[in-house]
């Protein structure tokens, strides 16, 4: 009984020991610089470091949560053990820093107007769910202890996420907030302490007036407060804690954070700061005249924080300007004016309310109206506020030794439609947009559609194309992939590949064999084969005839059609070959015809059967009506008879005694109503055949009961011949290998003329010389794997020559992993003169429509999202495959070097 426990204990022990060893190992390893460290390399199309110009095609190296390098890709040597993260087509910016928020406990605010001893950090709940801000890219915020009282307390700076809770507080006393705007001029004018039990330790406190009911009072009061604080004797133990903390803040030269609006408030704030010789920060000045001539290089000028008078997606009512006062300039113009006045990196932006933190970047883009560059505006929500909050060495910019707090954006920052893809704090992911697998938006340079080349990209939803072109609507969670200048072509079709079955299949198969059962899952050959862009492959046995299967080259191969065609071969002695082939086709045709006839007969039978059923019903109702008439007649007759007997009995003097024995004959429970109809029921049944007079009475002709039609006889089922039925009904294609000229003629004669089948020939040289014949008979030609040959010293480009005659073409590789090289082989044919469009059609739409693979082969709305992203035009050797998608899922993406 105890053995499992002790076993567990042993295991735990073992685990502990292992852990211990691991720890020892790690600590040992950390001494050596390279191993044991967590090194991550983040590649992105753009990195905006926050404190400098954008770096295109850049990489950022993060070691143990700190940035070590940010540079262009080529300029940084990437450590071999670095984990690579590719954000191709995306941009990285520093985690956003907000210069002022009130994300503190929202319990009742203090009613005291002056509380410098209050610390916002005490109201910060690190366990609160800040996910929505992290999802908006906000990683660091200033906390303000209150908004509407004169001196609400000391601010703090915290990170909104991160592993170590205690390290999330970057500053527990960042500034002393002083509100000089009208908000603070209406405190509860008289402070009324709550009335509770009065006791020795808690005497009834007197009510008292508070600061400040007017601006002048506020200024004078503040002056006095600071004066008292300065005079305070720190050694005494009975000091007012309020003054004591104020004195400490003055001594520490804490930043004074003034909320101001008008010129006179700005003036007063600056004067107070100057008098106290303390650094100052202005929040939301609506009038900036007073700030024009300032020397922004001075250390005591910490900066200015502006917020837009706008809320994301909501209407606000602008105030009507007072007639004789200069209207307040728009915030973007104020920002521009300050930048022009040389404010440099001392200008920050904050959202108007905490609610709008989720749309910080959207609102920030408003500042671009004034003519500020993306870089400048971005630094107003990253580098600048970080510097103003005194934490510029840790956050706000991506520079060596800074915390790896950064945001991955779907595109350029501060542009419409750009979304946050992921947020990192100290190198750890704190938000990752749940990439919606069902929707993908691919932005590229151009798209090859059946209607020509269209600029833009495609949108994919639920594995199908849902949009094509330059302006795509994508769902909110759609994963976005960008391939600037990429060319999107449909996924290629290989008309004969050996991949998918785990090797070459050379068995002779019955034509009804299901190749789909043989497909290999998670096959490495498939993974390699699709890297060239082939998304759909056809397979068959090399021993012909054989059924042909069409499948997608996904990890677990998806069957498109099984079978899609039958593959034959015409070779060797053509005289005997023709004979045997004709015999086979004839028997197939005969079988097919028998079934076709049966099908036709059966259809006719069904029609007849229906007619019969109707007739039968009519007959039955007629019969029932007759029976009823007969019944009533019989009943009448019986009644008459009964009357007669009763009369007779009455005459005999024995009344009604007969009734009882009668009922005893029947079941005792049933009443007379049920027993009476019994005799008439039998009567008409008897009457019908015997009594010829009755039908005549109804007046209906022909008592003939309608005859049930005979069901046609099913022909015998021959499994091996079954596939000929869809073949002859033109649902399947006959693919015929014919390498000689005569063989081609034979194929045309036999398959097209005699049996009228959808026919494709697999041929190279012979088809090229018989191109006109094939064109006349509408035969598709599959070429490959050899596309180019030599004849009479001349290079012959088979697909080129065939296509030139107007014959539809397709390609096959007949290899396994070589399938990935098929497009390269086709490029050679293109190089030798095959038209690019013909080549592309031959690799996609041509065989797809010829073989009725309706879901694939073209980039059209509603078709399967099989596509190849190329770095340039298709069938250029210089073009590289960047990515391959099958059914809406990426199956190959080029690795970054």
């Amino acid at each position, binding site marked *: 009984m105890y053995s499992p426990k002790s076993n567990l204990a042993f295991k735990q022990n073992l685990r502990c020991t292992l852990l211990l060893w691991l720890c020892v190992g790690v600590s040992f390893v950390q001494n050596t610089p390279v191993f044991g460290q967590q090194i991550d390399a983040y590649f992105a199309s753009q990195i905006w470091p926050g404190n400098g110009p954008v770096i295109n095609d850049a990489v950022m190296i993060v070691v143990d949560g700190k940035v070590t390098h940010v540079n262009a890709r080529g300029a940084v040597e990437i450590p071999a053990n670095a984990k690579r993260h590719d954000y191709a087509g995306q941009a990285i910016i520093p985690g956003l820093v907000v210069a002022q928020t009130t994300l*503190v*406990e929202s*319990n*009742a605010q*203090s009613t*005291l*107007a*002056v*509380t410098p*001893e*209050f*610390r916002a950090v*005490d*109201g*910060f*709940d*690190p*366990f*609160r*769910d800040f*996910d*929505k801000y992290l999802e908006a890219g906000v990683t660091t915020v200033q906390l303000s*202890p209150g908004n509407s009282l004169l001196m609400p*307390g000391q601010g703090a700076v915290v990170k909104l996420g991160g592993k170590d*809770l*205690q390290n999330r507080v970057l500053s527990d006393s960042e500034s002393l907030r002083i509100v000089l705007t009208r908000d603070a001029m209406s405190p509860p004018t008289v402070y009324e302490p*709550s009335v*509770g*039990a009065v*006791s*020795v*330790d*808690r*005497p009834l*406190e*007197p009510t*008292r*007036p*508070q*600061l*400040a009911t007017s601006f002048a*009072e506020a200024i*004078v*009061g*503040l*002056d*006095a*407060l600071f*004066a*008292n604080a300065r*005079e305070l004797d720190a050694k*005494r*133990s*009975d*000091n*007012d*804690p*309020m*003054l004591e*903390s104020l004195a400490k803040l003055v001594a520490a030269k804490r930043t004074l954070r003034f909320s101001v609006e008008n010129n006179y408030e700005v003036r007063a704030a600056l004067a107070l700061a100057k008098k106290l010789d303390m650094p100052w920060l202005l929040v939301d000045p609506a009038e900036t005249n007073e700030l024009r001539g300032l020397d922004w290089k001075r250390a005591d000028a910490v900066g200015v924080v502006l917020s837009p008078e706008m809320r994301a997606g909501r209407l606000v009512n602008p105030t009507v300007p007072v007639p004789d006062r200069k209207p307040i300039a728009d915030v973007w113009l104020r920002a521009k004016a300050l930048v022009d006045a040389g404010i440099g990196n001392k200008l920050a932006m904050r959202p108007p309310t905490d609610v709008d933190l989720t749309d910080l970047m959207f609102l920030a883009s408003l500042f671009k109206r004034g003519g500020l560059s993306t870089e400048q505006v971005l630094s107003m929500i990253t580098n600048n506020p970080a510097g103003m909050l005194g934490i510029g060495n840790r956050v706000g910019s991506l520079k060596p030794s800074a915390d790896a707090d950064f945001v991955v954006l779907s595109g350029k920052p501060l542009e419409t439609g750009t979304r946050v893809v992921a947020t990192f704090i100290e190198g750890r992911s704190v938000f990752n947009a749940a990439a919606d697998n069902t929707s993908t938006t691919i932005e590229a340079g151009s798209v090859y559609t059946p209607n020509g080349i269209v600029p833009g990209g495609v949108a994919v939803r639920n594995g199908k194309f849902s949009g094509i072109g330059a302006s795509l609507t994508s769902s909110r969670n759609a994963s976005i992939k960008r391939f600037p200048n990429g060319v999107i072509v449909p996924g290629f079709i290989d008309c004969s590949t050996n991949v998918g079955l785990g090797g070459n299949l050379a068995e002779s198969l019955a034509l009804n064999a299901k190749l789909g059962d043989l497909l290999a899952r998670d096959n490495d050959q498939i993974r390699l084969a699709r890297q060239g862009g082939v998304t759909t492959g056809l397979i068959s046995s090399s021993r012909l005839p054989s059924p042909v299967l069409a499948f997608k080259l996904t990890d677990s191969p998806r069957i498109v059609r099984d079978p899609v065609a039958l593959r034959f071969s015409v070779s060797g002695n053509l005289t005997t070959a023709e004979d045997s082939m004709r015999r086979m086709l004839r028997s197939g045709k005969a079988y097919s015809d028998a079934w076709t006839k049966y099908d036709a007969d059966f259809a006719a039978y069904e029609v007849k059967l229906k007619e019969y059923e109707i007739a039968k019903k009519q007959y039955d109702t007629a019969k029932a009506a007759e029976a009823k008439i007969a019944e009533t007649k019989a009943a009448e007759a019986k009644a008459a008879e009964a009357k007669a007997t009763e009369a007779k009995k009455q005459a005999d003097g024995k009344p009604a005694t007969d009734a009882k024995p009668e009922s005893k004959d029947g079941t005792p429970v049933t009443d007379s109503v049920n027993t009476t109809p019994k005799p008439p029921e039998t009567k008409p049944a008897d009457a019908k055949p015997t009594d010829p007079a009755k039908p005549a009475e109804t007046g209906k002709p022909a008592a003939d009961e309608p005859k049930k039609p005979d069901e046609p006889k099913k022909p015998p089922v021959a499994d091996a011949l079954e596939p000929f039925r869809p073949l002859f009904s033109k649902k399947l294609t006959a693919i015929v290998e014919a390498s000689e000229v005569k063989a081609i003629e034979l194929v045309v004669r036999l398959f097209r003329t005699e049996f009228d089948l959808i026919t494709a020939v697999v041929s190279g040289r012979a088809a090229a010389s018989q191109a006109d014949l094939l064109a006349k008979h509408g035969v598709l030609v599959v070429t490959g794997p050899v596309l180019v040959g030599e004849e009479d010293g001349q290079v012959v480009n088979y697909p080129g020559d065939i296509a030139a005659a107007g014959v539809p073409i397709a390609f096959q590789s007949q290899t396994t992993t070589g399938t990935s090289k098929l497009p390269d082989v086709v490029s050679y044919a293109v190089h030798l003169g095959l038209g690019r469009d013909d080549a592309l059609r031959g690799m996609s739409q041509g065989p797809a429509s010829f073989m009725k693979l309706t879901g694939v082969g073209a980039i059209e709305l509603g078709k399967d999202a099989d596509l190849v992203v190329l770095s340039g035009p298709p069938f250029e050797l210089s073009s590289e495959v960047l990515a391959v998608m099958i059914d809406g899922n990426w199956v190959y993406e080029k690795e970054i070097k």
Partner: protein
Amino acid sequence: MDHGEWQNLRERQEQAMIKPQSKWFARVTALLSLTVSATHLVADAPLAIQGAKIIPVVGEPIAIGTVLIRDGKIEAIGKDVVIPGEAKVIDGTGKVVMPGFVDAHNSAAMTSANERNEIVPFLSVVDSIDPVAAYFEECRRNGITSAAVVPGNSTLIGGQAAIVKTAGQYVNDMILKRDAGLKVSLRPVSGNRMSQLSRLRKELDKAKKAVEKEAKGEKPDEAAETKKEGEETPKPAEKPEGGSEEKKDESGADQQPSGGNDAASQAAGLEALKKAVKGEQPVYIYCENGMDVTAALQLVTEYSLKPIFVLGPSCYKAAELLAKRNETVILDASLVFWETNPRTREDKKVIVPQIYRTAKVPFVFQTEGFGARTSLGSSFFWFQAATAVKYGMPEKEAIEAITLLPAKRIGIANLVGSLEVGKDADMLILTGEPLNISTWVEQTIIDGKVVYERSKDDKIKRLLAPAAE
């Protein structure tokens, strides 16, 4: 010894009546109870519990053993303990003997707890303990033999806790430890956490300063003296009207009006705080939620306090932070509850004991809490341990969490918490295995005296009696 006390003693004696083991014993008992002196003799006679399964908590359970009690202490425990002839014997066949439960945090023992005055470090719960309170009766009925009576969570600095036995005629008889710790609650009753913490810091700063002064060799009284000076000579009058008014008033509020009693209580309060700041006395810190835990940890390092964490239900979020301290915490009574994510509206079941166990934070239970106003009273205590067992806590650990672990946490493990030779004879005789729903406390023994017997529990009888027609 006046008449009343005598009467009490007698009652107590009767309460402690023991089923005679044999006829001879019955006769002896009857004989002895005839005279007063004999009664005294019987009170001091050793007591033996024989034939029961013994769970001593420390060490392996004894399948059938004997516990011998003399003079209120455990004299012997084991399989083959020789029972002296004069001992009273309780037949424990088929029963289970285990140490009495220890409640590490409780405010229900106070008849009128202070819920109004926020900063009263000088108060002591002793003044509010009523020995005949229903709480104690419940305790004895449900096996709690020691309890830390701690000021409630509704005041900032609530005063001094005391540890008591749950049976006794007078408070002084019950007390195990007076001034067992200072209670601090971080849950703001009025205002917000910023003001709560600033007020707390103000008090702690005062104490810290005083301690520092003492350390420098200055007279501790100096503070009081300067205070008087300050009052006599008001602050310079050069202050302008607006701000000074407020300032003066506020400082006035801090300086208590003079008067003998006030100064005394102020001094007592300061002394209590000083003890806390010096680390001489533990501080019960009540944390309502996770952010309070971070604040508490900050305070602990800032003022080098010796904390006993009393945690609200949602403190589980800070379990990992608490794990670093490796201290036993006191959990709220609501151990399992549902929480709704405010954004996704998804409900999540929170199993508190599981979370702390995963984080490797040792914990004990209590019957009070924010989310558990229950009519089950102290019987809930037992239920707590059973709940933890339901969610994966080994039974042995759960039993320890209501006996030895809380005793250790509040510093009385040398006296109670386990059945060991020399410890106080506080134990329970259960009808079956502990933590079993059908198990009853048959008898409760405190300091060697039977203080509860189910067979004489009128209330239980009436409760379980078939309803009258």
